[in-house]
């Protein structure tokens, strides 16, 4: 299925949009909050999966672009009164530009050094969020004014839910389009063998750099989505645990596949809530159980849950 994704693949997105508008009328805010949280992480995970699953570039910098997207959208709104419809794309563009700037030097690094250099970049970015008091509010964090989109006031879970669903649907469609396009194939070729790619006329360095940039744009969009339903942001949101959580999501879900990333987000996103309610008396054991789940996932399903299911069903 090449060229524009056929309509059958787009059907589930219609379901998502329907849920996006229907659920706010049915569910209490707690479940809507979880839904918003998962939808934001879905966009974030798809972005990292493009870079790691499709292009095979093992990079940890994703959370830094998520932070840049969040702070940029929030500051544009709070300080300059830029409406969300303009602010979020601008923030995503900024994240993309920085991603491109990081992408070019990063393309010279081999896997383990690329991982460590981008990890260092993410930690340095968090240090900046924490120390640049005048702009990001530093450790005290930043209160986010409820944005309005063309007059429709967002900021609460029920009001943000449909907007998030629309954005997620667009992002999934874009990802489908991207991964079946020539650029998508070029990314896969780089993951499999850079020599084949280069010998087949693919500019390896610029494809990697563009993969970095596009994945950073995804993170910037997720940052914008954060300001839709959260009212406060502080530097801890972009710390080391979030990098690990995001990486675990796409590995457990299944690298290099849209359903895999979404399954991983749903499972590991809801895990803390499930563990908190089920392990009533054993709360202290939660950390140990979370570690065992990660180890179990990579031991028994190296291709992730979706790889496991797809392998079972025989489809690719």
């Amino acid at each position, binding site marked *: 299925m090449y060229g524009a994704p056929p309509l059958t693949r787009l059907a589930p997105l219609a379901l998502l949009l329907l849920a996006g508008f229907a659920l706010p009328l049915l569910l209490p805010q707690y479940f809507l909050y979880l839904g918003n949280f998962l939808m934001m992480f879905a966009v974030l995970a798809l972005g990292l999966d493009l870079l*790691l699953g499709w292009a*095979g570039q*093992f990079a940890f910098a994703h959370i830094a672009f998520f932070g840049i997207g969040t702070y940029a959208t929030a500051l544009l709104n709070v300080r300059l009164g830029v409406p969300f419809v303009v602010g979020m794309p601008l923030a995503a563009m900024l994240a993309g530009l920085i991603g491109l700037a990081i992408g070019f*030097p990063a393309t*010279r*690094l*081999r*896997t*383990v*050094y690329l*991982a*460590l*250099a981008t*990890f*260092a*970049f993410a*930690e*340095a970015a968090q*240090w900046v969020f924490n*120390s640049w008091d005048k702009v990001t509010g530093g450790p005290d964090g930043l209160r986010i004014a409820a944005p309005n989109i063309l007059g429709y006031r967002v900021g609460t879970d029920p009001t943000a839910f449909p907007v998030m669903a629309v954005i997620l649907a667009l992002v999934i469609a874009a990802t489908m389009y991207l991964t079946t396009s020539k650029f998508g194939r070029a990314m896969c070729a780089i993951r*499999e063998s850079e*020599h084949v790619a280069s010998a087949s006329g693919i500019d390896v360095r610029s494809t990697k750099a563009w993969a970095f940039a596009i994945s950073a744009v995804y993170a910037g969009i997720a940052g914008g989505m954060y300001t839709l339903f959260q009212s406060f942001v502080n530097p801890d949101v972009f710390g*080391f645990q979030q990098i*690990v959580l995001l*990486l*675990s999501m796409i*590995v*457990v879900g299944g*690298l290099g596949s849209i359903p895999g990333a979404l399954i991983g987000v749903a499972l590991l996103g809801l895990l803390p809530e499930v563990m908190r309610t089920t392990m009533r008396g054993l709360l*202290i*054991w*939660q*950390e*140990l*159980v*979370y*570690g*065992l*789940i*990660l*180890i179990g*996932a*990579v*031991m028994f399903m*190296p*291709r992730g849950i979706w790889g496991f299911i797809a392998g079972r069903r025989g489809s690719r």
Partner: protein
Amino acid sequence: MSPLLLQGVASGIVTGCVYALIALSLVIVYKSSDVINFAGGEMVMLGGYLGMFALLWLGLPYLLIFPFGALMIFIVGALFDRVVLTRVVGRAIPGQSILVAMIIGTVGLSYVLKGAVRVIPYTEEVRRLPPFSSGAPIFVGPVVLQHQDIAIVVAAVAIMAALWAFFSFTLVGKALRATSQNPRAAALVGIPVRAMSMTAWGLAAALAGVAGILLAPKLLITPDMGVIVILALAAAIIGGFVSLPGCVAGGIVLGVVQNLIGLYVSSRAISLAPFLVIMIVLLLRPQGLFAGKAAAKKV
């Protein structure tokens, strides 16, 4: 040289050796199974707690807690490799990078170790192991050093020398190096590759455990002391992530740079230092300061 600078450099060397000890463990794991051990910090933490447990509850003499801790954590490292990593490597699909799955495996291990320690009551308070050798501080000119500091520097150099000797002269050492360079060839000449990988992980874990015991008086034992692995990673990278002497040099460079930044820039920038150093080093020399020329991949 102002006394302030001298003291800063001296203390920087000591903390640098702290990072180097852990970096050695990370490099051994990387050379043997091509993966970054994100649970390295937790192995250090486990070493601290086991050392304290041996000293305070079992009443072992101070010198004996080192082998005790080393053996226990050797088992943890070897078991992790045997049970988890060989299975992940075995089931991996040729071509697909198993690096990601193994990294998540080590992250899982770090949560398991932290979770296990935190379940035991009384681990909430901050604890400290009495120092290996205590006594009045030693004055070298304006510089004041503790016995424990000197013990750490001596230990770092001694362990690095012992490792160098182990890897160059003993049969097991050479087998480990062969396996890490070319597992298939090693297997062909009869080296039990799986046992080698277990030994490498066990050795690295034991090293981290010993570092834990050595650092506990200086670093304080809490379930979250494992965060220091980030600084050890920075030290390892400066050293090129492949060379053992590089680790010690990388650690010392990082320790001193941190103190200089703290003294002359701002104490707030100290926590930024390791990340800047990593990015600068990798930008200038993608294969690290002390590693050889970047090898062109043979097609």
